[in-house]
């Protein structure tokens, strides 16, 4: 995207002059304080919201209106956003159902995806019977079931406890590693973004801008041991410094 800005009718400028390129197969962490327009950025990338100025281009399969074809983009919200009246299986099958492709192949895909997020045996459970972490896994399975080229995550683990969060980080890492979709992961946790990303974009608030673009050169696949390594600590410190600078700039 080039020079993307977004102003709302209320006069709030959520984004200003954002230039951002995301390469195929990259895991981009978008880091910034809350209210810095990260969600708006994701919505523009997803095509759910049009930029006020600037252009956004996706090199994905598109439909007639120029939007990404259904199922090429997966989206995970901060809340699991499941349908409470449907079972885990039906929730994961939803993208196929909406594409009118809920046949035997799709059912097999949904079942496989549920297994791959570690929820085998819970297919017939209802969301309310699951813990917060398990619900989030269902949400991730639903986003991945169509094998999207682009996966957008909007602070997906912010509401979870530290232990669940770490487990989900490892699972997300593993899932990404096995298929390599392009990922844009919005978070306000420095540690999480360094652990997961191949690159981090640091944002400021009001108006939202990208102030730093840092490659994170760590070996793949990443494992738990990394969390305690000195190299990881140094990287976290660097990123924290950039974030602190961004926040100081934002409040000025």
């Amino acid at each position: 995207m080039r020079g993307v800005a977004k102003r709302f009718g209320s006069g709030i400028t959520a984004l200003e002059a954002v230039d951002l390129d995301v390469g195929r197969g990259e895991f981009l962490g978008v880091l910034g304080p809350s209210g810095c327009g990260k969600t708006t950025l994701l919505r523009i990338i997803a095509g759910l919201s049009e930029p006020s100025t600037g252009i956004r281009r996706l090199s994905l399969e598109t439909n007639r209106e120029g939007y990404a074809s259904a199922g090429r983009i997966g989206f995970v919200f901060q809340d699991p956003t499941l349908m409470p009246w449907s079972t885990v299986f039906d929730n994961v099958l939803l993208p196929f159902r909406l594409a009118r492709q809920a046949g035997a192949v799709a059912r097999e895909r949904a079942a496989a995806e549920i297994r791959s997020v570690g929820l085998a045996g819970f297919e017939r459970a209802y969301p309310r019977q699951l813990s917060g972490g398990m619900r989030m896994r269902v949400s991730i399975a639903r986003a991945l079931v169509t094998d999207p080229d682009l996966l957008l995550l909007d602070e997906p683990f912010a509401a979870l406890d530290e232990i669940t969060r770490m487990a989900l980080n490892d699972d997300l890492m593993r899932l990404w590693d096995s298929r390599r979709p392009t990922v844009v992961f919005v978070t306000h946790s420095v540690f999480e973004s360094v652990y997961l990303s191949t690159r981090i974009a640091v944002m400021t608030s009001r108006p939202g801008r990208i102030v730093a673009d840092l490659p994170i050169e760590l070996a793949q696949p990443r494992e738990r041991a990394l969390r305690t390594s000195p190299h990881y600590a140094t990287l976290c410190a660097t990123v924290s410094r950039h974030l602190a600078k961004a926040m100081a700039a934002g409040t000025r």
Partner: protein
Amino acid sequence: MTPRLAVRQTRARLWRITAPLAVGAGALAIWEAIVRLEGIPPYILPGPMLIAETLWTDGPSLLGSLLVTLRITLAALAAAAVIGGGIALLFSLSRVLALSLFPYAVILQVTPIVAIAPLIIIWVRQPFLALLVCAWIVAFFPVVANTTVGLNSADRNLLTLFRLYSASQTQTLRYLKLPTALPYFLAGLRISGGLALIGAVVAEFVAGTGGTETGLAFRILEAGYRLAIPRLFAALFLLSVTGIVIYLLLDALSRLLLRHWHESAIEEENE
């Protein structure tokens, strides 16, 4: 579940049934005692024993009348569910339609049915249909109001998700808005159940013996004129029981449909 917890729950359930029954029995006993001690004549206030006796002797003929009223009530309730649900659906599809028609639904709701029932009875020649229309006017509003709210309450993020997957309007309605609205619709229907009965009774009061069959409401009126107060009470009793049964059935239906997911239908012991 531990055995002790099970015992406590069984005891709690027992209390829920026995406590109201004890209060009822006590009240009836006091009533009977006052009637006997004060020597109140039955045409002013009959005792519960006499009412029970009347219920037994007049039962068959009263039950026949109850059936007439019940038919109107259930037909009105069904019409409230179908037409009320349909109106709410139209409202959710078109904002213009909702804005322009909703005030009239409110007007129809707040106009006392007693005042317009005579007109309806004149206009609609078929007596059953006339009574049905009256009862429907009283009963339909909660369904419309509740279902409209329900259809507009779909989770914003889920709506976004549906857009992302290029869901059609029909799909959004079928997979998202209708399930969201179901608990609201059922809550409306429970209110409408009681109102349909009230509507049927009021309409019968106004219509008198308009038809060939006499409903329970007319029997109450008639019993009042003839000072057959025990029969009046017996008919009243049947009417109350009918109302309670309708409520319980709708409540059970609601629980059955929502048992898997809605907070209102989930037993505490599952937590």
